[in-house]
C-alpha cells in the first residue's frame, strides 16, 4: 500500500503535486461552499418561485412562478418603501464614507503628537459597531434626554448658520443640504468607516516616499501632491472600499430585518426568499454600475 502511494506521488511532476495539494487545501472550503452556500442559494431561488405550505409530514412546495415577486413588489405594504430607503441610504452614505475615510487616512498618516492614540481611537468603532448595539442605542431614552440637556439645539443652529453662509456664497442648494445631512449623521459615518480608513492607510503607506520627495523638489504643494500622487495611487482602493461599504451595510439595515421577519415570524418562506432575491439583484446592479464607473477612472501602476 505504502509503495503504491509512493509510486503515485513519485510519478507526478512538482506542479501536478502542487495542484493536488492545492485541491486538498481548498476542499474544506469547497464542501462548505456547496453545503452552506451554493445549495442553499439554489434552494432559496426555488423557494422564491414556490408557495410553501407546512403540514403534518413536512413541507409541500408548489411552483407558482413569479407570484411571490409580484406580491413583494405590489401587495406587501412595506417592502417597496424599505427597499427604496435602503438603496437611497446606500447611495447617500457610500460616497460620504469613502471620501471621509480617505481624508482621515491622509490625516492619520501625517506625523503629529499623539498619532498612535488618535489611530487607536479612530479604529475603536471597528470593534464596537454592531447590529444589536446600534438598534438598542436608537431606542435609548437616556441618550435622548442627555442630548436634549447637553446641546439643546446648539448643534443644529450652528449648522444652519454655516448653511446660510454657504448658500449666500453661491454653493448649490442640493450640495449644501447633502453636507448638512452629513454633519447631522457624523457619528454614523465615523462609526462605519473604521475598516475603510485602515485600508486607505495601508494603501498610502505603500506609496514610495521618493515620489513625494521629487514632487517637493519640483515645488508642489501638499494639496497638489495629494491630487497628483496620493489620490491616483490609492484610487484602486476606492473601488475596494465602495464594495466593502456596500457589503458592510448588509449586517445592519431594515431590509435584512424585514426579510428575516417575513421568514421567521410569519413563516412566509416563499415571499421572504423572493424579497431576498430582489434585494440581492438590486445590490448587484448597484455594485456593477459603481464598479464600472470607478474602474474606468482608476489608475493602475502597471
Amino acid at each position, binding site marked *: 500500500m505504502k509503495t503504491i502511494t509512493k509510486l503515485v506521488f513519485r510519478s507526478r511532476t512538482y506542479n501536478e503535486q502542487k495542484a493536488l495539494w492545492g485541491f486538498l487545501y481548498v476542499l474544506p472550503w469547497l464542501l462548505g461552499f456547496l453545503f452552506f452556500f451554493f445549495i442553499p*442559494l439554489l434552494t432559496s431561488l426555488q423557494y422564491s418561485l414556490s408557495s410553501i405550505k407546512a403540514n403534518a409530514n413536512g413541507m409541500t412546495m408548489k411552483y407558482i412562478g413569479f407570484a411571490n415577486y409580484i406580491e413583494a413588489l405590489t401587495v406587501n405594504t412595506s417592502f417597496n418603501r424599505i427597499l427604496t430607503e435602503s438603496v437611497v441610504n446606500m447611495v447617500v452614505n457610500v460616497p460620504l464614507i469613502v471620501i471621509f475615510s480617505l481624508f482621515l487616512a491622509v490625516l492619520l498618516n501625517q506625523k503629529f503628537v499623539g498619532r498612535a492614540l488618535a489611530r487607536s481611537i479612530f479604529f475603536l468603532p471597528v470593534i464596537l459597531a454592531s447590529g444589536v448595539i446600534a438598534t438598542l442605542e436608537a431606542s435609548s431614552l437616556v441618550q435622548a434626554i442627555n442630548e436634549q440637556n447637553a446641546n439643546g439645539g446648539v448643534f443644529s443652529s450652528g449648522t444652519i448658520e454655516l448653511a446660510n453662509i454657504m448658500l449666500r456664497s453661491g454653493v448649490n442648494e442640493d450640495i449644501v443640504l447633502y453636507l448638512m445631512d452629513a454633519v447631522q449623521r457624523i457619528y454614523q459615518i465615523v462609526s462605519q468607516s473604521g475598516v475603510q480608513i485602515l485600508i486607505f492607510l495601508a494603501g498610502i503607506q505603500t506609496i514610495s516616499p521618493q515620489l513625494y520627495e521629487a514632487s517637493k523638489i519640483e515645488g508642489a504643494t501638499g494639496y497638489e501632491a495629494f491630487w497628483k500622487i496620493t489620490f491616483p495611487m490609492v484610487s484602486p482602493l476606492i473601488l475596494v472600499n465602495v464594495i466593502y461599504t456596500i457589503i458592510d451595510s448588509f449586517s445592519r439595515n431594515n431590509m435584512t430585518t424585514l426579510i428575516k421577519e417575513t421568514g421567521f415570524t410569519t413563516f412566509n418562506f416563499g415571499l421572504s426568499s423572493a424579497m431576498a432575491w430582489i434585494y440581492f439583484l438590486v445590490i448587484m446592479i448597484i455594485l456593477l454600475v459603481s464598479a464600472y464607473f470607478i474602474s474606468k477612472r482608476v489608475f493602475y501602476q502597471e
Partner: protein
Amino acid sequence: MILARLLSLESWKRGLWTIVRLVLIIGLSFVILYPIIQKISTAIKDKADLYSPIVVFIPEHFTLDNFKQAISIMDYWETLANTFVLSSMTTIMTAASCAFAGYAFARLKFKGSNLLFAGVILTILVPPTTILIPIYMNLKDFTLLGVIPLLTGGKSLNLLNSYWPFILTSLTANSLKAGLYIFIFRQFFRGIPKEVEEAAYIDGAGVGSTFLRIMLPNAIPSIVTVLLFSFVWQWNDSFFTTTYLTSSKVMSTQLSSLPYNLQILLEGGATTNKDPFFMSMVQDTGILLAILPLVILYLFVQRYFVESIERTGIVG
C-alpha cells in the same frame, strides 16, 4: 529678504494646518468616544441624577446598582463565558481553514481554481439574508446528504441551539465573513516572494511542511488581522447568533432580548421601578457590559491591530 518672508508664510500655513488638524482630530475622537463616556456615566449614576439638570457626566449620587441589575438580568458571567468560548472557537477554526484555502488560491493553482475563487467572491457579495432560510431549514433537519438518517434509522438531527452550526461553518471556511478572510490571506500569500518557497522545495520540503514551517510564520500579520476581525465580529454578530442560538446564553442574544427581559422584571418588580428611564439606564449598562470585554481586549491588542493591517497586503 523675499525668501525669509516666504519662509514665514510657509510656517504660518503649517501652523494653521496643525491647529485645524488638532481640532478635527479631537472633535472626531470626541464624537467616537462620547457614547462610551456617556454610557459609563449613566451606568454609575443613581436614578435621582437622571432628571437633574446639573448632572451631565459626573453623577452626584454614585451607585453600582445599575451594574447589579444588568448583571443579574443578563446572567452576565455565564453569558460572558459562553460568548468567549463560542467566539474563540470559531475564530481559531475560521482562521485555520481560511489560511489553507487562501494559500491554495494564491500559490497552489490547479485546474478550475480560478473558477472556485470566483465562488469565494460570490460568497462575499451575496447578502447573508438571501440564503438564511434554506440554511436554517437545513440545520433544523440536518441529514448530511442522507447519511445521518441511515445511521439513526430515519431521524435527522436538529442542530439548532447548539454550537454545531458555528463549528461546521467555520471548519469549512464558510462562517461569518469568511470570504473576506480568504481574500486577505490570498492577497498576503501572493505578496511573499516565490523564491522563499522554491528554496524550501529545493531543500526537500513538501508542500505541507513548506506551508506550515515557511509560509505561515511569515504570514503572522495577516493571521493576527484575521484572528482579531473574526473574534470581534463573531462577538458582535447578532444576525447568525440570534437565528441559530435562540435560547443559549451568549452576549448578542442576551442583548437583543434585554429590553424584553427588562419589561418582565418591571411588570413583577416594585412599583418604584416602573420607570422607562430607569429601564433605559439598565439597558445602557447592559450594552456597556457587553462591549467592555472587547474594549479591554482592544486596549491590549490595538497596536498589533493597526500595525498588522498595514502589512497584510489587502492593498495588493
